[in-house]
C-alpha cells in the first residue's frame, strides 16, 4: 500500500451483493441443500424404533453385498442404464431429426408444429400414464385395432405387462413425452447457425445431407452433449412415470424398477414393508454419487473435446 492509496476514498461495503444473492441463497440452502445434506448424512446411521446409531458405511456395504438388497439394487441400476440407453438412442435422435426439419428454411407452419410437438412435455405423468395405459390396453384395443388395420395385428401384445417389454414400452412413453426438450434445444442452436455458413457450404458444392453432416452437426454437437447430460441426470432421477403406471413395486417382477422407485420403496416402505430412512438415505447417496460420477466422466471425456463456437 502506498501512501497515495491510503488517501483513496474507501469503497463502501458491497451491500448490493448481499441483497442480490441472499434471498436466493437463503431459500435454496434452507429448503434444498440442508435437507439434502441432512438426508445424505442419515445414510451413515441405522434407525430403529426412533433410535439411531452410527454405523459408518455399513448401510452401503449391505446395499451392494447383501443379496436381499444388492439384487434389487443392481437390477434397478441395470434397468436404469437400459432406460437411459433407450433415451439416448431414441429421444435425442428423434429430437434432432425434428429440430432439423423444423429449421428448414422457409418452412411454413413451423411455429405450429413446434408448439404441438412440445405439448406432451407439458403434461403431468398422471395424464401421460393414464392415457398410454388406455391406448396400449388390450381391453380397450386401440393399439391392437390400429396394428390390425396396418396388417401387423399379430405383433400386438400386452407390452406393459410383459417382463421383456414393459421397461422398453415405458421408455418409449417417456421418450414420447420428453422428445420436445431436445428438439427445442437443438432447434434453437440450429437457428443460431448463421445463414452465411450454410450458404457458403452450398456454394462449396455440398448437398443438403453433406451440409448437415459436415457443417451443422459439428456445430450443434455441444448442444447434443448438453442434451445428453440433461437426459442422463433426468433418467437417473426418473420415478414418476414408473410409479404412475407400474406402482412402487415396479412389476412385473421388478422389470421396470429404476433407482427412483427403488429409493421410494426403501425410504418410505411399501404396503407391509416398513420404510427405512437410513437405508433410503444410502440409496439416495448412491444415486447422487452415480449421477455425480456420470457427470464428471462426461465432463472429463466428452465435454473437454467439444468446443463451443462463437459465430
Amino acid at each position, binding site marked *: 500500500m502506498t501512501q497515495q492509496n491510503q488517501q483513496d476514498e474507501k469503497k463502501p461495503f458491497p451491500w448490493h451483493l448481499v441483497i*442480490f444473492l441472499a434471498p436466493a441463497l437463503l431459500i*435454496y440452502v434452507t*429448503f434444498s441443500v440442508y435437507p439434502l445434506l441432512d*438426508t445424505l448424512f442419515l445414510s451413515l446411521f441405522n434407525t430403529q424404533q426412533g433410535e439411531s446409531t452410527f454405523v459408518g458405511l455399513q448401510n452401503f456395504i449391505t446395499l451392494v453385498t447383501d443379496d436381499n438388497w444388492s439384487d434389487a439394487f443392481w437390477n434397478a441400476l441395470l434397468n436404469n442404464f437400459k432406460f437411459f440407453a433407450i433415451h439416448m438412442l431414441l429421444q435425442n435422435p428423434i429430437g434432432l431429426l425434428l429440430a432439423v426439419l423444423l429449421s428448414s428454411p422457409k418452412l411454413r407452419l413451423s411455429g405450429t408444429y413446434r408448439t404441438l410437438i412440445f405439448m406432451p412435455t407439458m*403434461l403431468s405423468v398422471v395424464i401421460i400414464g393414464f392415457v398410454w395405459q388406455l391406448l396400449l390396453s388390450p381391453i380397450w384395443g386401440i393399439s391392437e385395432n390400429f396394428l390390425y388395420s396396418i396388417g401387423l395385428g399379430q405383433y400386438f401384445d400386452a407390452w406393459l405387462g410383459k417382463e421383456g417389454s414393459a421397461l422398453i414400452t415405458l421408455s418409449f412413453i417417456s421418450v414420447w413425452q420428453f422428445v420436445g426438450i431436445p428438439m427445442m434445444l437443438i432447434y434453437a442452436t440450429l437457428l443460431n447457425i448463421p445463414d452465411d455458413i450454410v450458404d457458403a457450404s452450398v456454394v462449396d458444392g455440398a448437398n443438403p445431407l453433406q451440409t448437415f453432416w459436415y457443417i451443422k452437426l459439428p456445430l450443434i454437437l455441444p448442444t447434443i452433449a448438453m442434451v445428453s447430460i440433461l437426459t442422463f441426470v433426468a433418467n437417473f432421477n426418473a420415478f414418476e412415470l414408473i410409479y404412475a403406471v407400474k406402482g412402487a413395486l415396479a412389476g412385473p417382477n421388478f422389470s421396470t424398477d429404476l433407482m427412483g422407485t427403488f429409493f421410494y420403496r426403501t425410504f418410505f416402505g411399501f404396503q407391509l414393508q416398513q420404510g427405512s430412512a437410513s437405508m433410503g438415505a444410502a440409496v439416495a447417496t448412491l444415486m447422487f454419487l452415480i449421477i455425480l460420477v456420470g457427470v464428471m466422466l462426461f465432463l472429463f471425456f466428452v465435454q473437454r473435446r467439444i468446443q463451443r463456437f462463437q459465430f
Partner: protein
Amino acid sequence: MKIFNDLLSSSSRNVSKSVTVHAILLAYTVIALFPIIVVIINAFKTRKAIFKDPLGLPDSSSFTLAGFEEVLLRSNFGLYSWNSLVVTLIAVSLVLLLGAMAAWALTEYKFRGNFIVTFLFAMGIMIPIRLGTVSILSLMVELNLANTLTALVLVYIAQGLPLAVYILSEFVRTIPKELTEAARCDAVSEYKIFFCIILPLLKPAMATVAVFTMIPIWNDLWFPLILAPGEETRTITLGVQQFVGQYVTNWNSVLSALTLAIVPVLILYTIFSRQLIRGLTSGAVK
C-alpha cells in the same frame, strides 16, 4: 420451353423436398397429439361408447357431459386449479426474480466465495430435491408452514433456482458490459442497474426459465401430497390423481378430469411460447 425446364429443375426439387418435410412433421405431430385427442374426445362420450368405439367422435347418442358434471360436482376443481395457479405463478415469478438476482450477482461481481456459490447451485441441477423430503417436512412443521401453499412455494423455489441461476447466468454473460458501464457512468445505483436495465433485457431468457420451471411445478404430485395434502390446499395435479384413483372405473369422469387438467397448462404455455424460442435462440441453453 427452357423456362419450363428451369422451373421443373429447381422448383420441383424444392416442392418434393418440402412435401417430405411436412409429411414427417405432420406424422410426428399426430403421434404427439393422438393420445391427448383420444382423451379429449372420449371425455365427451358415455362410458359404454368409450369402450365400444374409442376412436369415434361423440355423436348425439353417445355425447354426454356427465363426466364433467361429475368432476365439477364431486371435487373442488375450481379451488384446485386456483391453488395450482397461485403456487405455480408465485413460485415461478420468485424463481425468476431471485434467480435473476443471484445470476446477476454471480456473473457481474467478483467476490470471494463466488465459485463455491456457483458450484452449490450447479449441484442442485443434479440432485433431486425430493431426496430431502423428510427434512423438508420437519422444517416446514417447525416453521408452522405445513399444509400451506407457502410451503409448496418455498420448496418449488428451492427446486427451480439451480437451473434458473444456470440459464440466466449464461444470458447475463451475453449482455454487453458496456450497458452496465454506461449506466454506472450515468450514476445509476447497482439496484437500478439490475431492475431498470438487466431485468428487462433478460425477458426472453426468463420465458425459457419460466417454461422449464413451470412444467415440473405444475405437474408435481409429490410435495403437494406430503406438504399440503389438505382439501383447502390441494393442487390440481394431486386433485386429478386422487380423482383418478377414486373414480378409476368411471372413465368418462376420469377423462373429463384429465381434459380439464390439460387446459390450464396449455394456456400457460401459449403465454410463454412465443418468448421461449426467442429466449432459446439468444443465449444460454445452446
